[in-house]
């Protein structure tokens, strides 16, 4: 059956209007980009709601959207753990406890916080790893998008790759971080409005939530699970064999709810940078909470339609199919674009495809702008050309460097995209490596912020060894039926996990524990290298409490956090 489709003139018209506005925003912001602070930190002038939507939009990249719809099909509502327990508590923690140190320390990046709190080498280790991983990640998402457009819409791979890169380059080059953030807000709305008609149509086609549950029962039972496994979240997590993820509730809580999500949301500069661009301390603390509200409802737009797609796949009268890969297996990541094809006529179809392009651009611009800041401040300014003291000249110089870095970053991403097109497995591998970096980083930053006794040497060795332990764990274990060494076991297999997800969770748990343990032990063994007054604004116990009494009660971060927490609990109970 045909798994390709063509767009019409009207669809291209809509896409063109979108491109015009995205570039227009960059153009309009160009005149404000007079110094490095404006270009790389958005002048710390973003209203909380703008930064909050950008915060969530930059996370909603193309790989995320495509992957989550596919996971909905493969694992059902269990996928929402990535959006609820696996995101919201971490975002609340970032907002309430960590943002004040990131923002208040005047650090311009997460690596720079490490420098202020610990020492130069800890910063260097994190900055280099982060810069490398960020450009590679943006290259991979570029590859995924271009190959999707080639396979499904028949567009030329090279043309879509270069065209999409050129647009992101143009608007980030013109308007820097401000332009990335502004466009992320615009893209956020395009993603919602573009995907909404598809989500509503697919749900009414399968007879709503109730109809979907009924149709799913025989399909899911056929796979050997209880009838409502695909429409519940916690109900079947008392054992590993009774849910498709193959993890138990405590694995979800500890692996996803704690180590992976805190590692991602609380330390990934790509995300934290949006909150650091906020206009005030209160705004910065509200950013993750404002982002959390749409985050909780995004599953209904991308995961639930994926679940409905499982019904469609098993109903021949719907003639819904997924493209197959070379091995003859369905490509689950293409579920979303196949749903767009299935339900949207010319017109809204253009808007839907534009939504996918927008999600790609928001993710990639996030990578590019974070890479820029880390490269310019944490690598170039630290090791290649330190500030001279003439602030005005420095600002001009680093602005120029930031601009050049934008171009270089995009070029390296393009190269990475071509590497990814040669080695399909590199994608899985890099995602694994990314989680190996984040978990130890969270351990180190957490101890740095909340334990004044932690020292620079402790942090550096904790960070390094946490990464090494993650590598070792990955090298010594394997998911069942692994066919390549990319999945693990490249040293030798001493343990086999039922599924890859379980292996990932445990890699992160081991890495986190090793990093935390080592940081504590080495800190105890080494002499304190910072005095109490050095740590003012960097460590919880050494910083005066924030006074929110001047802020209206309903605008206080704690109140917002309460609302977010209540919604999350209600959603979890509703879909228990």
């Amino acid at each position: 059956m045909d798994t390709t489709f063509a767009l019409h003139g009207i669809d291209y018209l809509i896409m063109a209007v979108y491109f015009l506005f995205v570039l227009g925003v960059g153009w309009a912001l160009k005149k404000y980009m007079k110094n490095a602070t404006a270009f790389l930190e958005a002048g710390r002038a973003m209203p909380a709601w703008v930064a909050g939507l950008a915060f969530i939009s930059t996370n909603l990249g193309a790989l995320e959207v495509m992957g989550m719809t596919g996971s909905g099909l493969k694992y059902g509502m269990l996928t929402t753990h990535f959006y609820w327990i696996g995101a919201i508590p971490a975002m609340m923690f970032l907002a309430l406890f960590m943002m004040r140190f990131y923002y208040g320390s005047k650090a311009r990046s997460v690596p720079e916080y490490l420098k202020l709190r610990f020492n130069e080498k800890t910063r260097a280790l994190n900055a280099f790893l982060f810069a490398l991983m960020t450009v590679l990640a943006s290259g991979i998402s570029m590859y995924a998008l271009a190959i999707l457009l080639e396979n499904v819409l028949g567009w030329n791979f090279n043309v879509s790759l270069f065209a999409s890169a050129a647009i992101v380059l143009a608007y980030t080059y013109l308007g820097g971080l401000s332009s990335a953030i502004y466009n992320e807000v615009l893209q956020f709305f395009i993603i919602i409005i573009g995907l909404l008609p598809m989500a509503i149509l697919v749900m009414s086609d399968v007879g709503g939530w109730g109809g979907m549950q009924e149709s799913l029962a025989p399909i899911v039972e056929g796979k050997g699970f209880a009838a409502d496994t695909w429409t519940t979240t916690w109900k079947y997590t008392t054992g590993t064999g009774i849910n498709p993820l193959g993890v138990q509730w405590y694995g979800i809580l500890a692996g996803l709810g704690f180590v992976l999500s805190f590692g991602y949301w609380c330390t990934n500069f790509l995300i934290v940078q949006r909150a650091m661009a906020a206009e005030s301390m209160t705004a910065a603390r509200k950013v993750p909470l404002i982002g959390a509200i749409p985050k909780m409802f995004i599953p209904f737009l991308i995961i639930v339609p994926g679940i409905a797609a499982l019904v469609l796949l098993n109903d021949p009268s719907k003639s819904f199919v997924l493209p197959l890969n070379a091995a003859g297996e369905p490509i689950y990541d293409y579920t979303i674009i196949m749903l767009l094809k299935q339900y949207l006529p010319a017109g809204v179809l253009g808007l839907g495809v534009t939504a996918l392009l927008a999600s790609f651009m928001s993710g990639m611009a996030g990578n590019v702008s974070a890479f820029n800041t880390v490269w310019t401040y944490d690598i170039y300014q630290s090791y290649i050309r330190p500030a001279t003291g003439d602030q005005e000249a420095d600002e001009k110089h680093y602005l120029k460097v930031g601009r050049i870095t934008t171009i270089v970053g995009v070029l390296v991403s393009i190269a990475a995209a071509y590497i990814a097109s040669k080695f399909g497995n590199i994608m899985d591998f890099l995602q694994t490596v990314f989680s190996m970096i984040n978990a130890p980083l969270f351990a180190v930053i957490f101890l740095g912020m909340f334990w004044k006794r932690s020292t620079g040497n402790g942090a550096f060795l904790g960070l390094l060894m946490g990464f090494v332990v993650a590598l070792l764990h990955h090298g010594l274990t394997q998911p069942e039926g692994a066919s390549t060494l990319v999945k693990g076991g490249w040293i030798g297999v001493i343990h086999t996990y039922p599924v890859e997800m379980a292996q990932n969770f445990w890699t992160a748990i081991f890495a986190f524990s090793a990093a935390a343990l080592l940081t504590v032990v080495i800190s105890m063994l080494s002499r304190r290298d910072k005095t109490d007054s050095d740590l003012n604004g960097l460590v919880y116990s050494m910083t005066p409490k924030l006074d929110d009494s001047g802020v209206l009660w309903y605008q206080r971060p704690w109140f917002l956090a309460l609302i977010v927490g209540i919604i999350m609990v209600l959603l979890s109970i509703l879909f228990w």
Partner: protein
Amino acid sequence: MLDIRLPIGLMFSVVGLIITIYGLATIGDVELYERSLNVNVNLISGLGTLAFGLIMLLLSEPVRKKLRKKE
């Protein structure tokens, strides 16, 4: 600095208008709307998008300033 609601408002108004017009022009096109469960999803979605765009425009600082001046 630029109020982001202005470009968002403008863009969604333009896009909404295009889709609405296309929806109007294709009223009764059975074949086109067969896949969308016989609903003219362009018309509905277009009007919704247009409404969102106009609200954003009304909320944007430059427009509010002009409205205030008129009063």
